């Protein structure tokens, strides 16, 4: 049952895209591409749920040989374990809901069918990436989702900002992809295979490496993680994701919040078995720094989608941090919960934007051109003159319908959007117990703190503090968003008057996602036997750690201390060793001291963040402006997004342009000089010679022949007098002559 189901999951969206492509080829559009794509996606969703039952006991893998080159064989295949199935469900579920949402949101767009075709292609690529059992397949899916991201960010390519944003996204992720490819090649040269699982797979082979190869393996792991840095918008390649918000909002929800950016996390999780101590730490630090920095940037954004974009970056950093810190399950758990509540937030913001869109299109008339609307809004954006960022940086203008300073009080106008977004906000802020975000975030915090306590590692304490601060800031800025958007008095009365609740096709997905933001539906992650982290043979606790090495490593070289299902470790645990932190990794309910501490702290910081946000943006007892003025340098740092764009513009882009100029000069003077020199020599010497030869000799010959012929003809033609009598005369004279001549005979 597994293979047909997976084939169906992959083929349904691909077929929907193929119908679009083929119908384009024969120049006859399929009339309802939206229904087709949506139904295909729903079918994939059903198949994914059917798969859920199939895979529970053990991972399953189906591989076929694909290409043989020399002695090397590349294979293609599925690898199906519980993580894969959960990812499949997340992707198909979010994708289906986004499809439905888009039917309302994108209604009336001139390229409406194409949008759904792209969504289908994206869904296929993402699912392909998820189920692939080898690095090559993952890479193919990886680049395909990159392509779809490019196409969809630039969907309204009439806008310069969208066109630039999609190029920026593609190029920036490409930087990471190059690293990933080098990492893949390193693994390939070492192991002569790109398959991950099985006897001859990379993981099995890597497990047998000796300690001398650890540096090399760390480098390979970090390089592959580079791909994830690009794709998941981690520092320092995060700048493309906020700009990617130029794409349609459903795209932001599906690709840039729930699925594609999470692919980086997924890849890192897949690579979990080959992560070494060093590479894990790098991953954890990148994730931690990203989580903190992105969160601080989000505080000062006014564009509702930009806030969510930085929030996404921050949350992705969380996941990376979790995986880097060894909390495999927590990271993936957060991935799924985040997928649902962040998709909900994006779709909710889309609903708000849509309401304002409709305002611009005069009431409920949805037949409008989004691209045109957007360019209008760009012009509007400048009127809100308090923008301290006068210098143009890509994406720094805020379209009026996305500017939170235009919103306020919308909870009366859009109750469903408000309630669902509030649930998502509570979830992401980590409000305890009934929201899924709390549990997953708490699992991460607990995991990191557990690792820190277990290994007595300064690094992990620092990481824990980063994560904790990020959690607090997240709560702050998310409630800032909610307060600015839905509470208070309307700031822009005109826009407020025209705003309206979105149609059913948009609110229904919101409600479904709101339900999914409750922890009940993520129950799979609480079943410890369902998702097991793979072993990490090369990740050893530092020497000063409490855990004795022999308890960590069994005979086969697999480290088992990091998950609690191992009986050996369970025995150790009862033996009085302080390994609670290690177990807390899997215990999502926080039954160790690390988890208890983490939970209490996270509740505190979340509460603090929400409270401050309430003071600033609802009660207004504290003025955000005055604080910003007081801490001007810090505010500037946040506002300018830590000068990343300026750095890239000023250093990398300028360097590239300078280099290009240099090459252009070289090209202009040296290369062109040589070419022109050759040209001059050819023209002035060779051509002159051959030209002369041609003119004198060849033409002379030809002309001479013609002249002779002409002259002879001129003479001869006199004979043809046209007078019959002359002819007759000649004939008779000839007869006479002939007779005279032959008379002798």
């Amino acid at each position, binding site marked *: 049952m597994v293979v047909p189901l997976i084939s169906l999951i992959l083929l349904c969206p691909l077929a929907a895209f193929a119908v679009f492509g083929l119908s384009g080829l024969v120049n006859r559009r399929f009339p309802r591409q939206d229904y087709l794509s949506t139904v295909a996606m729903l079918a994939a969703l059903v198949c994914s749920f059917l798969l859920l039952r199939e895979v529970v006991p053990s991972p399953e893998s189906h591989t076929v040989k694909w290409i043989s080159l020399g002695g090397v064989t590349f294979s293609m295949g599925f690898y199906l374990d519980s993580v894969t199935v959960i990812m499949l469900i997340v992707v198909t579920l979010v994708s289906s809901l986004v499809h439905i949402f888009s039917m309302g949101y994108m209604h009336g767009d001139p390229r409406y069918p194409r949008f759904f075709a792209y969504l289908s292609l994206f869904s296929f690529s993402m699912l392909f990436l998820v189920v692939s059992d080898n690095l090559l397949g993952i890479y193919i899916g990886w680049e395909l989702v990159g392509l779809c991201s490019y196409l969809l960010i630039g969907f309204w390519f009439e806008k310069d900002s969208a066109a630039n944003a999609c190029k920026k996204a593609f190029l920036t992720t490409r930087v990471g992809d190059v690293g990933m490819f080098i990492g893949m090649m390193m693994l390939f040269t070492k192991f002569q295979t790109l398959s991950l699982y099985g006897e001859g797979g990379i993981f099995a082979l890597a497990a047998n490496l000796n300690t001398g190869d650890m540096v090399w393996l760390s480098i390979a792991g970090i390089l592959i993680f580079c791909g994830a840095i690009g794709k998941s918008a981690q520092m320092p390649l995060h700048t493309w994701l906020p700009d990617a918000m130029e794409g349609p909002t459903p795209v932001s929800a599906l690709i840039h919040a729930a699925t594609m950016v999470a692919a980086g996390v997924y890849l890192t999780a897949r690579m979990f078995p080959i992560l070494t101590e060093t590479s894990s730490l790098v991953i954890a630090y990148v994730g931690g720094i990203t989580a903190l920095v992105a969160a601080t940037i989000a505080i000062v954004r006014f564009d509702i989608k930009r806030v969510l974009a930085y929030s996404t970056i921050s949350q992705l950093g969380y996941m990376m941090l979790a995986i880097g810190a060894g909390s495999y399950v927590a990271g993936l758990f957060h991935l799924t919960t985040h997928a649902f509540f962040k998709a909900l937030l994006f779709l909710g913001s889309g609903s708000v934007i849509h309401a304002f869109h409709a305002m611009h299109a005069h009431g409920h008339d949805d037949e409008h051109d989004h691209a045109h609307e957007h360019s209008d809004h760009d012009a509007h954006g400048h009127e809100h003159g308090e923008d301290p960022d006068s210098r143009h940086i890509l994406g720094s203008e805020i379209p009026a319908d996305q500017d939170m300073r235009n919103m306020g009080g919308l909870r009366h106008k859009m109750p469903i959007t408000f309630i669902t977004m509030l649930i998502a906000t509570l979830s992401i802020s980590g409000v305890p117990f009934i929201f899924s975000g709390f549990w997953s975030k708490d699992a991460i915090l607990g995991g990191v703190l557990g690792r820190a306590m277990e290994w007595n590692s300064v690094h992990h304490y620092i990481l824990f503090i980063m994560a904790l601060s990020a959690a607090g800031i997240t709560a702050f800025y998310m409630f800032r968003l909610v307060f600015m958007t839905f509470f208070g008095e309307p700031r822009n009365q005109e826009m407020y008057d025209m705003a309206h609740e979105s149609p059913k096709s948009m609110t229904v997905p919101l409600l479904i996602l709101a339900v999914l933001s409750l922890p009940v539906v993520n129950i799979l992650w609480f079943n410890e036997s369902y998702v097991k982290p793979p072993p990490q043979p090369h990740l050893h606790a530092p020497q000063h750690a409490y855990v004795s090495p022999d308890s960590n490593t069994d005979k086969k070289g697999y480290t088992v201390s990091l998950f609690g299902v191992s009986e050996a470790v369970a025995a150790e645990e009862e033996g009085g060793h302080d390994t609670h932190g290690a177990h807390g990794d899997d215990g999502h309910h926080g039954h160790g001291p690390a988890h208890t501490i983490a939970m209490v702290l996270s509740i505190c910081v979340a509460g603090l963040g929400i409270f401050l946000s309430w003071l600033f943006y609802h009660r207004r007892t504290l003025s955000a402006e005055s604080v910003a003025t007081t801490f001007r340098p810090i505010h500037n740092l946040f506002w300018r997004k830590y000068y990343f764009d300026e750095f890239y513009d000023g250093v990398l882009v300028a360097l590239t342009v300078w280099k290009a100029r240099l090459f252009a000069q070289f090209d202009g003077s040296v290369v062109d000089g040589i070419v022109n020199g050759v040209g001059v020599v050819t023209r002035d010497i060779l051509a002159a010679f051959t030209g002369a030869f041609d003119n004198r000799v060849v033409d002379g010959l030809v002309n001479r022949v013609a002249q002779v012929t002409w002259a002879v003809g001129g003479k*001869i033609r006199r*004979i043809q*007098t046209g007078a*019959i*009598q002359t002819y007759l005369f000649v004939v008779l004279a000839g007869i006479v002559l002939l007779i005279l001549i032959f008379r002798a005979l």
Partner: protein
Amino acid sequence: MTLQHYLVISAILFTLGIFAVLTSRNAISILMGIELILNSCNLNFAAFSRFMTPPEDISGQIIAIFGIVLAAAEAAVFLAIILAIYREFGSIRPDEVDTLKG
């Protein structure tokens, strides 16, 4: 009255016909030259029939009769052509009808 008498008369007629055809500036006198030539031929046929074959064989005379018929046909066609040329060129002078001149 030997055969040679007739042949000489015939030869003279022939030569005069040729001369007329060669020198004449008028299509109709060319026609008359041709008639002379045809007459000389017929005369030859009759003479040879008389002298070279048995008296009973008069095939030569019959050929001469055919020759007369051909002359009549030729004269008719010739005159028709002369008329057509006259309409086309406004003249029946053979030296002026020289469209074939090279």
